């Protein structure tokens, strides 16, 4: 068993380090971080009315996470496999004595690290609310944690779709569409439509698979095991698909 795992995961750390370096060797990571933080700030202050709530918490900030992840994280993940295919380096990778799962996880974790860096850089906002009032810091830390798990789920969609195509643009568009379905399923506008068409039971089922619904509890500072399991399970499912789609390359 241990041997099996070691074999499957061989190449993980080499891949992780290469991918992480690749993000920072080009303007990619910097542009992503800058625009992501700008958008997050803009939405929190302008659309979320951060100061008007009169409460010292980060609710208006976290509420935008699913929507911004939906657009930004597929952009971060789109190059992971499509770029290899486009430049022919996938052939080099497949000729190495390493396991596909190690490659898949190495790449995903590199993108996840960049996303985590984005979250860390929002710390000034957390510091600000502590100046403004007396927020529940444990609750905020917990929301950050679940938000990071949710980011992994979004990235796993982008990475898996990227392994299906040699075009980064196609990977991005398809990933955003899939991410939108899983995000918007919990949107009141969509839910009320589903409810009027298919009844309450079905609407509940749809809502249960939505990132927004799963993230709701965490936003209030409640740690729901169900949500943690959902995001981890979702990521694992797409990692599995990613492995399947990446090894399909060998069939020609």
């Amino acid at each position: 068993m241990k041997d099996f795992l070691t074999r499957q995961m061989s190449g993980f750390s080499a891949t992780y380090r290469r991918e992480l370096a690749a993000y920072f060797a080009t303007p990619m990571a910097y542009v992503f971080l800058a625009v992501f933080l700008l958008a997050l700030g803009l939405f929190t202050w302008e659309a979320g009315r951060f100061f008007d709530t009169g409460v010292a918490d980060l609710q208006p900030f976290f509420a935008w996470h699913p929507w911004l992840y939906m657009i930004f994280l597929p952009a971060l993940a789109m190059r992971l496999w499509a770029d290899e295919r486009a430049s022919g380096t996938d052939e080099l990778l497949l000729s190495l004595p390493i396991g596909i799962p190690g490659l898949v996880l190495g790449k995903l974790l590199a993108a996840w690290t960049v996303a985590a860096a984005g979250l860390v850089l929002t710390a000034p906002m957390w510091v600000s609310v502590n100046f403004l009032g007396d927020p529940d810091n444990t609750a905020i830390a917990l929301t950050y944690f679940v938000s990071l798990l949710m980011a992994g789920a979004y990235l796993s969609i982008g990475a898996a779709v990227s392994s299906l195509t040699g075009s980064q643009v196609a990977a991005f568009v398809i990933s955003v569409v899939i991410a939108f379905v899983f995000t918007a399923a919990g949107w009141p506008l969509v839910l009320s439509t589903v409810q009027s068409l298919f009844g309450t039971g079905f609407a509940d089922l749809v809502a249960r698979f939505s990132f927004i619904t799963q993230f709701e509890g965490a936003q209030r500072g409640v740690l729901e095991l169900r949500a943690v399991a959902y995001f981890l399970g979702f990521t694992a499912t797409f990692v599995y698909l990613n492995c399947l789609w990446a090894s399909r390359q060998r069939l020609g």
Partner: protein
Amino acid sequence: MLEVRALEKSYGAKQAVRGVSFTVEKGTVLGFLGPNGAGKSTTMRMIAGVLEPDAGDALIDGKSILSDRRAAQAALGYLPEGAPLYEDMTPPEFLRFLAEARALPRSQRAGAVDRSIADARISTVCHQRIGDLSKGYRRRVGLAGAILHDPPVLVLDEPTDGLDPNQKRAVRALIARMAPTKAIVISTHTLTEVPAMCHRAVLIDRGRIIADDTPAGLARRSEDGSLEGAFSRLTDQVEDETL
């Protein structure tokens, strides 16, 4: 040593490789010749474990590329067609990545990287991004990657394609230096370099081996005694048969 056993591969209805077999012993450089689309690259991809064959097998240093893929790949150095590389890395970064991915013992990595940089003569471009290098240097960086782990078997897909005469000579010299201790397969369609570089020539056309001989022996099969003559005569012959 390398043993290729009845490899077959189809893409949809098109049979790209139809039962290719050959053996290369240590100390032999085998030239893998054939027209474009004959199945050279497909065969080499299957040997490298990049492409799964529909039938047949390849044994690299005695290990099957099907049942013991990782051990076989560890014994193989492979230069894919066009030498694809990570353009955002410098040559030493790229080689260190390969050393780590190939799980060379930590203590040997730096030595292996230095040795392959010296062997491939790329020390002067070590500080440049691979994306900024000329075609000749990129090809040599690819070669450095293939020989990094000092494998007993080398499969090089068009290692001299697109190089100027000086660069070609340098690559040929590198291959000649390594030849005594390795089994090497080189694909090329520059026939003039075959007698200088290869001990044996295998001619493939439409997925089948149509000749397996020494370069001199192959040349004797033509009317004018040249390799080009033999190449066009043998590949035309196949074309006539199918008409």
